[in-house]
């Protein structure tokens, strides 16, 4: 298990390194930085002075190492637009996105896994069909439309929940449902398929032949094997939720990373975009690593691989 974990962590570090090189390149490839910093009306001498001041005359490898060193120390540079440290902006926005992503994923798992299990137990029953309908709806409904419907029903008509802002936990309920619902169909169908396959396997017959009661057979012997692919999917979905929550964050006026990314792209605020790409990609790498380790915990056969 330890050897496996060490191997996975090394791989994750390699991926993170690659990601950092790409996001570093992102900024360098977007044109002459010194020219961009100096502005349109600057003289050639100003541009040269800036180039020297920011170290842009150095070879790329030196520039990368300097930049990477700063990033590791938590210094992402300053925003072109706000002239304030990108790190501070991220520190303010990231918790909102993380909270939204985590609660959306929790909602998706709590809804999808039990539904998938029940659907697998009674294939082609009314509950299976209901689950299938929910899944098709989840995949077919645009999330902005679903979010607006939630706002109209629960925010405006019933007045149960606030419709914008980040003040209390209640502010996160509707955005989490809107974001999480989108991930529900895939998780549910994978759980259903996994459970059906596992329930037909020989070791479930063995478990029943031992006289184990149905809950033990289901939850101890079947579900643990059936959720192994679901763990990997959930990690990927969580990554999507963090990076792809722009629409939901905009609709509910949640000032998260997604919203910031969208704003920064429209303003050509490269340092911010670069930092967001780097941070989200790193989170994604960490999530994948965690999913791998969790899978190894669930399935002993993976540990020796």
């Amino acid at each position, binding site marked *: 298990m330890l050897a496996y974990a060490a191997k996975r962590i090394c791989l994750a570090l390699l991926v993170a390194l690659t990601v950092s090189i790409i996001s570093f390149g992102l900024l360098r490839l977007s044109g002459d930085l010194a020219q961009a910093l100096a502005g349109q009306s600057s003289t050639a001498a100003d541009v040269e002075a800036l180039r020297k001041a920011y170290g842009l005359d150095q070879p790329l490898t030196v520039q990368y190492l300097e930049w990477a060193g700063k990033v590791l120390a938590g210094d992402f540079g300053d925003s072109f637009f706000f002239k304030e440290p990108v790190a501070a902006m991220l520190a303010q926005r990231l918790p909102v996105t993380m909270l939204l992503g985590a609660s959306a994923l929790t909602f998706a798992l709590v809804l999808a896994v039990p539904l998938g299990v029940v659907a697998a137990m009674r294939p082609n029953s009314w509950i299976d069909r209901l689950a299938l309908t929910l899944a098709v709806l989840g995949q077919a409904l645009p999330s902005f439309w679903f979010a607006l419907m939630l706002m109209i029903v629960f925010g405006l008509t019933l007045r149960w929940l606030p419709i914008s802002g980040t003040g209390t936990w209640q502010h996160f309920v509707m955005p989490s449902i809107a974001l999480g619902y989108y991930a529900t169909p895939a998780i549910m169908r994978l759980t259903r398929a996994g459970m059906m396959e596992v329930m037909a396997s020989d070791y479930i017959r063995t478990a*029943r032949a031992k006289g184990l*009661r149905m809950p*033990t057979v289901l939850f*101890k012997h079947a579900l643990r094997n059936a959720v192994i692919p679901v763990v990997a999917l959930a990690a990927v979905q969580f990554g999507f939720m963090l990076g792809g929550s722009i629409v939901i964050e905009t609709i509910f006026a949640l000032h998260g990373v997604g919203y910031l990314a969208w704003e920064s792209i429209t303003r050509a605020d490269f340092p911010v975009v670069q930092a967001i790409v780097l941070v989200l990609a790193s989170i994604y790498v960490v999530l994948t690593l965690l999913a791998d380790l969790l899978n190894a915990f669930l399935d002993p056969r993976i540990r020796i691989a």
Partner: protein
Amino acid sequence: MSVILDVQALDVRIPLAQGMLHPVRDVSFAVERGETLCIVGESGCGKSLTSLALMDLLPRRAERRAARLIFAGEDLTRASEARMTDLRGNKMAMIFQEPMTSLNPSYSIGNQLEEALLRHRRIGRREATDRAIYLLEKVGITAAASRLTQYPHQLSGGLRQRVMIAMALMCGPDLIIADEPTTALDVTIQAQILHLLAQLQREFKMGLILITHDLGIVARVATRVAVMYAGQIVETGTVAELFARPLHPYTQGLLRCIPVPGRTKRGTHLGSIPGIVPNLIGDLVGCSFHNRCEHAYESCAATDVSQREIAPGRAYRCLLTAEQCAANAAKAAA
């Protein structure tokens, strides 16, 4: 000797789109404590479904019916699912054909062994562990204590089947049903496993139902034999009677298919039974073997054949008399 399992007229029916499938029909037999009953027959003859029917582990769509199904004095046709769950793994245990896939890959051997005992007895984990170690040693696994923390993928097929046998023994059952326990194993391992099963069966005075398609296995371990064909038992008897004086044309055909060292002459053709097994869907009339039987006459296709008992525990399912059957066998041998 007391009868541990008494089965009368067991039927299994499975509704299919093409009609009703009758994979097990009118199966009757009894198993005594301390004896080994071998059920032999070719693939698809209903052996495995018969064993699953006894354990009430049939697929959900399948229907089970029986005139009598008495296990250790208890009528299983009336037993609730909860009662069956209490009996399974406890009083009646099963060993399956596929040791490679019959253990849960996610749990250690120890966990899977102990859980059967923890489920049926009020004991602590320590005692369950002791019992698991004791039985792993009994089934010939070395370094038993260290095996408990291993996972199925770390064991070979032969070892896994030994673990399955130890698992079946955990609660000290009265009856073990072994469904082709050696089919998936190497020939050398097969012999070891069979020898082990026979020895444990004697030591623990259990009833053993051994399902197989291998007549060599039957000759070595069986007390009594039931030959199955197309969902029915066509002949039963002690192993000595059945091998020496097979009555049913199918049994006779089967025995001609195996070479006997010393008796089968070099260069002679081994027997084979021409034709294919009948379709078991829909209403079935007549003897199920008539289309492959060399002694069949018109009534065979039209008359339902019931089991004829010629002595206690000796029966066959054919319209011919026992004398005619014996004469046919003698003619074929000549």
